């Protein structure tokens, strides 16, 4: 559906007002933790904890905005998820090779899980370290309680991988932490729970890294989930209340309808519309309860199949999951 002329101008202005007016609805994720800060250096393994790896002092430590001094352009995504403090320590083997250990204290277990899901890939091998761990070619991530732990090695050799695992297990043994992953993850249908990639998202940076819908943040969601499986990507974006989700859905529809980047925008029902982007990717968008759901696929899919997928998303135990909301 294309809207042109004066009506288009009014709609665009209306969408802009909604966007501006809604800017206050998103709150930063850097909410201070309500518990005592952790003693991160106490989690660092000493030489006695390891066979051949020795720490190369001193460790580095950064809190709050000082994260930008440590990882400059890479800090924003941590802030979006909710960051408190990081400690980083290099470990060296007798041949002078280095593994870098970073322990990030996030603002809570959901933030730690979120950052873990953002940084890991479907190609990573799962390991029983922390609450979840993934080993990629030359690096390993795990999360435990409010902490995300990242170990970066030097190559994909057996020696490097053994070093990563040894140090990871030593860190894990020193961390008496636990926490729950976001309840939103439980809202995924069973067949999507083993999806090739599931990312918990807390804001527009994470969303745009998975799929860049617009140059601006149109969705203004509270929290969300993205999952990729086969030829499909699905997004569940949660809002504070059903009324808010419906309002936002209207603004999202108008953004799609007004954008030259999308065509064939059709809204056959009040709570549902579809569109096609410049690459031919089909988008199907629905609002239900306090969510907006999106399904993306490069292949033309019949409406019945899409409706069935949305129905599966609605069937989940909303009541039980909602009762566990923070």
């Amino acid at each position, binding site marked *: 559906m294309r809207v042109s002329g004066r009506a288009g101008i009014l709609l665009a202005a209306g969408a802009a007002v909604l966007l501006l007016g809604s800017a206050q609805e998103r709150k930063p994720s850097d909410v201070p933790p309500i518990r005592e800060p952790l003693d991160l250096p106490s989690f660092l393994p000493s030489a006695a904890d390891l066979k051949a790896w020795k720490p190369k002092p001193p460790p580095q430590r950064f809190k709050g905005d000082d994260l930008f001094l440590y990882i400059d*352009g890479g800090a924003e995504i941590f802030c979006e998820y909710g960051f408190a403090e990081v400690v980083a320590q290099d470990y060296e083997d007798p041949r002078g090779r280095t593994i870098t250990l970073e322990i990030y204290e996030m603002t809570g277990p959901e933030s730690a899980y979120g950052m873990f899901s953002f940084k890991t890939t479907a190609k990573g091998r799962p390991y029983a370290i922390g609450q979840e761990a993934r080993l990629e070619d030359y690096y390993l991530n795990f999360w435990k309680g409010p902490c995300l732990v990242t170990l970066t090695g030097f190559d994909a050799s057996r020696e490097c991988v053994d070093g990563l695992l040894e140090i990871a297990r030593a860190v894990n043994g020193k961390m008496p932490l636990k926490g729950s992953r976001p309840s939103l993850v439980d809202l995924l249908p069973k067949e999507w729970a083993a999806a090739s990639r599931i990312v918990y998202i807390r*804001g527009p940076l994470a969303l745009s890294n998975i799929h860049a819908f617009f140059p601006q943040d149109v969705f203004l969601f509270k929290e969300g989930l993205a999952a990729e499986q086969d030829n499909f990507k699905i997004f569940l974006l949660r809002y504070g209340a059903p009324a808010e989700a419906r309002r936002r859905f209207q603004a999202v529809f108008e953004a799609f309808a007004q954008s030259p980047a999308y065509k064939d925008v059709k809204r056959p029902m009040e709570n549902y519309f579809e569109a096609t982007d410049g690459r031919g990717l089909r988008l199907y968008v629905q609002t239900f309860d306090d969510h907006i759901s999106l399904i993306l696929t490069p292949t033309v899919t019949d409406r019945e199949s899409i409706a069935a997928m949305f129905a599966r998303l609605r069937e989940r135990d909303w009541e039980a999951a909602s009762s566990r909301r923070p």
Partner: protein
Amino acid sequence: MAHPIGRREFISRSAKLGVSAVLSERLLAGLAGGPGAAWAAPAADVAVVSGGDLAAATAKAVELVGGIGLFVPKKAKVVLMPNVQSKNPGTFTKPEILRAVIRMCKSAGAAEVACLSYLGQPNWDGTGLAQVIKEEGAVLKLIPRDDANFKPTPIPNGAALKEAMVMNEFRAYDVFINMPITKDHAGTRFTGTLKNLMGLNAPSNNRGQFHKPNWQTDPAAIEHLETCIVDLNTVITPALNIVDATEIIRTNGPMGPGELIKPGKVIAGVDRVAVDAYCATVLGLKGEEIIQIRKAWERKLGEIDLKKVKVVETKV
């Protein structure tokens, strides 16, 4: 077919390249062949060279865009800006590429070849680039982050950024060669030649101006950042861009660790927009999908349509 260009046309082209590429008469005299010589037009606008020998690939890429003599006159002071943000694999410019460029500049008769950086010694040591600089007789100048070491630089046509804070030391150099690695970036999805210039801008300006005060809640924050990057590029123009696209991260940029891909390419060109548009394709993206590339094209800083520029791909 190549056509020779005279000195008058070269000066005209150089003036369009910006402050950092305009050369004095003394330096013009030092260009290969002297001031009265004619030069053949380069074989490529964007040179893309593959091959395991990174030094040879780098040399070939520069040759295809005109040869180092076109950019570095005798006795010039040259500043190079490789990326040393992180020592994680696929996140920093390869030492072999830096070494090759230093050697080319020296063979062209440069009086000094330097790297300027407000990042610390550990960044340069951890990437191996400090060692290369030392071995090749180049200079590494570490600039403290204080604003006193950066000069306010008005941006007359800035859409979002009205003033940059450019490194004082940068102005002491005659030629600027931009040497980023292209890779994923969590903030902007992509980084290449345009974004690398933030390394010359004061950290306080990068943090305070490129990011809106309420960047975590403002829906327009991402676009604002990318607009500022383009604004900065209107007042700083490299003479040449040489991009490491050999082994790069496709995820978790800019710091990594992330998924490594190995396109094995060294890319060179004067037109930053065209070079970045090509680099975007290496990461599976299109130039027009990246806000900073599209805005730079809209502001006429270069060409985004790769069909309209001469892209030459070859192997060594």
